[in-house]
């Protein structure tokens, strides 16, 4: 329940008071709320997504660590994506 899924920011999308970003998570585009970050992440930035929110910015190595953590907790990568469709508009 506590672990984040890594994704890479594509860009901002309108909605929820300008707090929504489109983030690519293992090939699928998800809407993610960025209201818990200091500033809006630039396209290409890796973020950790938790409960529909980007909670941390990270790099490719951090993203890989997070992904293997999810696998260790018994979630195959694809399921991890399906499990976290992100918030609605």
């Amino acid at each position, binding site marked *: 329940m506590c672990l984040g899924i890594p994704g890479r920011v594509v860009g901002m999308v309108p909605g*929820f008071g300008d707090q929504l970003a489109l983030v690519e998570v293992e090939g699928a585009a998800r809407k993610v709320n960025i209201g*818990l970050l200091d500033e809006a992440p630039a396209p290409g930035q890796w973020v950790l997504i*938790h*409960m*529909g929110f980007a909670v*941390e910015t990270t790099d490719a190595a951090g993203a890989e660590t997070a992904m293997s953590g999810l696998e*260790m907790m018994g979630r195959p990568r694809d399921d991890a994506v399906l499990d976290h*469709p992100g918030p609605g508009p």
Partner: protein
Amino acid sequence: MKYLDEFSNPDLARHLLDQIHAATTGNWAIMEVCGGQTHSIIRHGIDQLLPEGIEMIHGPGCPVCVTPLEVIDKALAIAERPDVIFCSFGDMLRVPGSSQDLFRIKSRGGDVRVVYSPLDALTVARENPDKQVVFFGIGFETTAPANAMTVYQAKRLGVPNFSLLVSHVLVPPAIAAIMESPSCRVQGFLAAGHVCSVMGTAGYPELADRYRVPIVVTGFEPLDILEGIRRTVLQLEQGRHELENAYARAVPAAGNPVARRMLEDVFEVTDRAWRGIGMIPGSGWRLSDAYREWDAEARFDVGGIHTDESAICRSGEVLQGLLKPHECAAFGKECTPRNPLGATMVSSEGACAAYYLYRRLDTPATRPVGAGA
């Protein structure tokens, strides 16, 4: 029984284990606080690779597991109402209340929905203005910012039919309660890096000092855990008791400032009961006065529900490290992940579920031949 070649870097794992074996002269009991760490330790058999003198005690760091039965019963009472859409993480659906679970309510036609973000529940509320939509907000410091932000948005957007059933708990007061307990055997702690990334490490140095106990912040990957254990053992052997950070990524001492501001606005500290441990003063959050309107417990008047814990399930002792899961008479018999008697058998972060998945067929006390140095 697990072998080193299953580690991502077996050479490094061997090296860390050698160092742990070489450093250990005493008998030490170390508690890993986080349920993800428990899962990792049992899955990779880390406890079986350590020197005889080191015992890993599995801590209360599973959010599903520490949510009191009473709170589950409150959730069930709310979810049963015909005017309610009850939204929750999937993990909570099979947690047994005193007479049923959310799954049963759903199968009997109750509107219980699994969501992956509290914002999804807020969207459901906006789409169903004639229904009351409740999100079950449980967990540690990690899940609180998302719940806080959602209530903040509910207020900002004016969504009166949304509410949060809050049972949030905090790690540092639990560490203090464990150390204050007369039956405490813990001499060192592994804390969780991803929990500290929200609130920072404030409070930990004082805990280390007050209870003269080493606290090492680390991750939940097997190598992170070995490094955390290595550093804890070195402190114990050298008579030190400090906060150390062994987490791969930097943990900013101040945590995430935006999340902290949001938490301070939306929540206030309150006493919370922990399943298996009991009431711990100042160990949780509830909605602050400004957001009390969105509190499901008050809205549905379920504050009067009081329930006692099950007599058969010994998860309370498991959560305090007084009993290993396979020592419970119901383990693997009446109690399995399919038919759980306690929350520690439901969640993948729960110690009973981890033992069931990875240890059920092992003889309890066996240690692999040739493990360690």
